[in-house]
């Protein structure tokens, strides 16, 4: 294992009964890098994300995380309080459906401020200022800070979720189909936004998507999964322009050319 990796997985294996979800999966993530995991439905992408983020335990294999003080942690052997603290501060999770992550009965400002308050912020004015600043960063009108999320459109909800996740400046963000279920113009704008934020804040991200265009736009490196196995991995452009594995070739050729 290289000395510089942020997150490192070795030999992850997990099956649901007879169905293999992960078969001996290795993965490495360096600081500031975006890694895309692509594949069709049921190929184990989301399971991999859940296992990497410690939300689901593998049957075998290990996930190492290097904290800011350069100490290595075995994610699945970490005590529950430490893992929960990690998820609140250093890590973030962006769900496909923003309603899973947001509190729909709490104002946009409250939603963005929750992680700050969980972190110990006890100054209303500062929390609000931060919230407004972040709403602006994700291109939501600052005047909507007191509105409830249920008055927001789908694309705004997803941007609000991103603001809520990034407000504590996490070093590592897990994204599960962040642009899924949005129409194409909203998707493009969101992708642009995510790309800008990730680059500016130097955030490392593991991005699960079935959309090769999303991977092409956002990711530095790509892993192609099929039936729980990583069939091909490498630099995004390299893999997509010159796919070696037959399944990757199939994926790339199946994308409609506009």
């Amino acid at each position: 294992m290289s000395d510089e990796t942020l997150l490192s997985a070795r030999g992850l294996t997990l099956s649901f009964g007879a169905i293999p979800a992960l078969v001996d999966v290795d993965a490495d993530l360096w600081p500031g890098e975006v890694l895309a995991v692509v594949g069709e439905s049921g190929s184990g992408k989301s399971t991999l994300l859940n296992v990497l983020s410690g939300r689901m335990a593998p049957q075998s294999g290990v996930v190492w995380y290097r904290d800011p003080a350069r100490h290595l942690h075995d994610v699945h052997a970490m005590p529950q309080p430490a893992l929960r603290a990690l998820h609140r501060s250093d890590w973030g999770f962006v769900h496909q459906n923003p309603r899973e992550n947001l509190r729909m009965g709490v104002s946009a400002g409250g939603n963005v401020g929750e992680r700050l308050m969980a972190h110990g912020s006890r100054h209303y004015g500062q929390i609000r200022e931060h919230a407004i600043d972040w709403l602006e960063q994700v291109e939501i009108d600052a005047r909507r800070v007191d509105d409830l999320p249920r008055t927001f459109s789908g694309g705004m909800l997803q941007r609000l979720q991103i603001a809520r996740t990034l407000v504590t400046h996490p070093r590592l963000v897990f994204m599960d189909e962040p642009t899924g279920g949005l129409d194409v113009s909203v998707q493009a704008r969101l992708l642009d936004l995510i790309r800008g934020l990730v680059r500016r804040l130097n955030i490392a991200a593991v991005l699960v998507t079935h959309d090769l265009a999303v991977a092409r736009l956002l990711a530095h490196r790509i892993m192609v999964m099929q039936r729980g196995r990583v069939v091909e991995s490498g630099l995004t452009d390299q893999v997509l322009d010159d796919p070696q594995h037959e399944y990757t070739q199939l994926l790339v050729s199946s994308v409609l050319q506009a």
Partner: protein
Amino acid sequence: MTSPATGYNFAYLDEQTKRMIRRALLKAVAIPGHQVPFGSREMPLPYGWGTGGIQVTAAVLGQQDVLKVIDQGADDTTNAVSIRRFFGRTAGVRTTTHTGEATVIQTRHRIPEHALREDQIIVYQVPQPEPLSKLESSRAETRSMHGLAEYGLMHVKLYEDITRYGHVSISYDYPVMVNRRYLMAPSPIPAFDNPKMHMMPALQLFGAGREKRIYAVPPYTEVKSLDFDDHPFRTTRAPHCCALCGADDSYLDEVVTDDKGGRMFMCSDTDYCETRRAQGHVGPEAMAAE
């Protein structure tokens, strides 16, 4: 005083039950603000009338104790009179309405105005012991939130209140941090009474009968009402003085006196009001009556 009823154990509950409750109480005192489960018994009064408080009182009551029971500050309401008479009959203990004379005070929704002493115990009746219950419905989740001291959610509620109303709108059962560790529901006492819990010399015990939880604040323990640095906790009280005794520092009840909009404000703590009147303090209403 009526003579003790025969056929009942001292203070109604059997000794094994009292021991079980005392074990829960000891644990509760050892971990201030932590909710300890206990085997709550059926009591001869309905849930919501103080089944938790009455069991705690029964467990701590001794033959030499002097009992005072208040309901919303008053000694003379049905609930207070019934519970006082209950222990008068089943334990034969002396009862009183004077805060200063009592050694055990069972209360519903108030803390007496008269400062409590080290040799006194105050027992609160608690309907809902879980301060996070309205924000997180899963008890398994709130338990782990308490275990890991993850109380950001409670501040989200305060944040929302300030955003919507400009101030925290919780007027009773205002959440407190006990000993800088556990978030605790102080039972539905007015936020006005919250500062009295801080560093109180008396032992504070809380019993929730229906929810089967006991918790406690030992004497001289830090109890801090939640707030923001730039929106500090403030108590509110009706901007009047007591119509009967003229007190301008006590918590007031608004009493409607007729159907023409007539109303008066008077101390909710009846003992405090009576003591003041006995000392010669006269309020505007009482003065007009003379």
